[in-house]
């Protein structure tokens, strides 16, 4: 099994380790719920070094990414970040990723761990037509420091000035790359550092009061924030238009991979949508539970779980477009239980957004 450079630190801290797509990763260090609350109320950190960092450089780096990605790379300022999907020719989602613009000819892309091989293969195939090249940065570690106290806790420990760093922007020096991004719905940063510097930085963060958090808390935090998880909330068999990612598609100049398929779908009619759900009674919503309303509309929960911040069972689900909000029910074991459709996110900046 693959290990990140922080593997020893996790084991020494008493982490419960699991096989996460071939990586030996911490699921929690004791209580997942305590870790979740640390990020919502204070500051926590995650080792996400299993994710893949790819630098794209060359005179046509921008043209390449404009072709590859369904969002608009050309609207980025220097050091700005962009969330986008990468689509196949049928409009299905190959992956979702963050791209940072370093300069007009240089970009940094961070893709999911579980999709690494197919992403690299797709990049390689698509980049051939452009005067650009890619470099996988495989000797780096990524630490996400997240929570309302993230910036003030981190600032004294590093040389970069974070006071002017806006959300969804990055700053960097020779050894550290800091993006004010994350996957929790809280303020925070993602730090990309050389592997050899990671363990010392992790230790300094612990000493500064940052709580190590496992991938379990990362999942409940991102679900509360209404953020998609690749492989659950979308994959190659669904388009962004059907799973709540239409907002990431650029409106102008539709010459990206998958654009034609999306246009055909728009003309034929989009029959599915992504919704937020709250269980009215007691229980827990889970991935793959089915939904039905009194008119026969159906749906399936793509991500579900217990929300520590709202103390409710919440879920994201892909449903038939006409799903009746007043009669939607979830099948849990042998029971049908009423649910409520709510706007995403469930939690923003530490506060529940679910209306009573």
């Amino acid at each position, binding site marked *: 099994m693959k290990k990140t450079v922080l593997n020893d630190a996790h084991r020494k801290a008493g982490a*419960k380790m699991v096989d996460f797509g071939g990586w030996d990763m911490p*699921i*929690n260090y004791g*209580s*997942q*719920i305590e870790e979740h609350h640390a990020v919502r109320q204070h500051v926590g950190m995650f080792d996400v070094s299993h994710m893949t960092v790819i630098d794209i450089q060359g005179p046509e780096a921008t043209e390449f990414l404009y072709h590859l990605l369904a969002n608009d790379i050309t609207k980025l300022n220097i050091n700005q970040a962009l969330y986008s999907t990468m689509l196949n020719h049928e409009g299905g989602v190959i992956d979702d990723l963050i791209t940072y613009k370093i300069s007009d000819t240089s970009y940094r892309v961070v893709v999911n761990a579980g999709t690494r091989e197919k992403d690299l293969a797709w990049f390689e195939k698509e980049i051939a037509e452009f005067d650009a090249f890619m470099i996988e940065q495989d000797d780096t570690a990524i630490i996400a420091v997240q929570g309302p106290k993230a910036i003030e806790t981190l600032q004294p420990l590093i040389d970069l000035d974070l006071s002017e760093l806006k959300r969804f922007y990055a700053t960097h020096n020779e050894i550290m790359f800091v993006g004010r991004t994350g996957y929790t719905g809280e303020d925070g940063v993602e730090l990309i550092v050389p592997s050899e510097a990671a363990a010392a930085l992790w230790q300094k963060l612990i000493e500064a009061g940052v709580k190590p958090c496992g991938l*379990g808390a990362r999942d*409940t935090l991102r679900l509360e924030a209404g953020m998609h998880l690749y492989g659950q909330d979308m994959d190659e068999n669904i388009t962004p238009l059907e799973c709540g990612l239409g907002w990431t598609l650029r409106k102008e100049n539709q010459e990206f991979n998958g654009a034609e398929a999306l246009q055909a779908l728009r003309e034929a009619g989009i029959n599915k949508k992504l919704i937020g759900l709250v269980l009215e009674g*007691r*229980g*827990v919503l*889970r991935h793959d539970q089915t939904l039905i309303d009194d008119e026969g509309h159906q749906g399936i929960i793509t991500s579900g*779980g*217990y929300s*520590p911040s709202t103390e409710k*069972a919440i879920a994201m689900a892909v449903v038939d477009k006409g799903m009746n909000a007043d009669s939607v029910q979830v099948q849990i*074991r042998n029971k049908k239980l009423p649910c409520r459709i709510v706007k995403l996110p469930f939690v923003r900046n530490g506060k529940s957004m679910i209306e009573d």
Partner: protein
Amino acid sequence: MSYVPDNLKYTASHEWLEDLGEGVYRVGITEFAQAQLGDIVFVELPEMDESYAQEDECGVVESVKTASDIYAPLVGTITAINDALEDTPELINDSPFDDGWIFEMKIDDDADLGSLLSAEDYRNSIADEE
């Protein structure tokens, strides 16, 4: 090593049983089981006065990670349920052998007790997983 009290009986599916006398047994899940599940957030209790066959599903314990069925360890009828778990399911994490008990049942046949594990047998059965 998980704590496995000597005075209880166990099942391979990680339930414990405490003999309350007169054929009534109190049932919960072990410390090992709660640690495996992680933070427990919901418990579906069996119905009072309901009868179950051995190994019938009679409830569910759900953690942040997963849902896990609870099985009736013996043939019998439910005589008490731990209502406190409805609002405070984390009692199972905090006190699996005491405040986190789940239900009590009156068993139909003492002969069924032979199928249960001793503390030592149960310790051996989980030794490989720890």
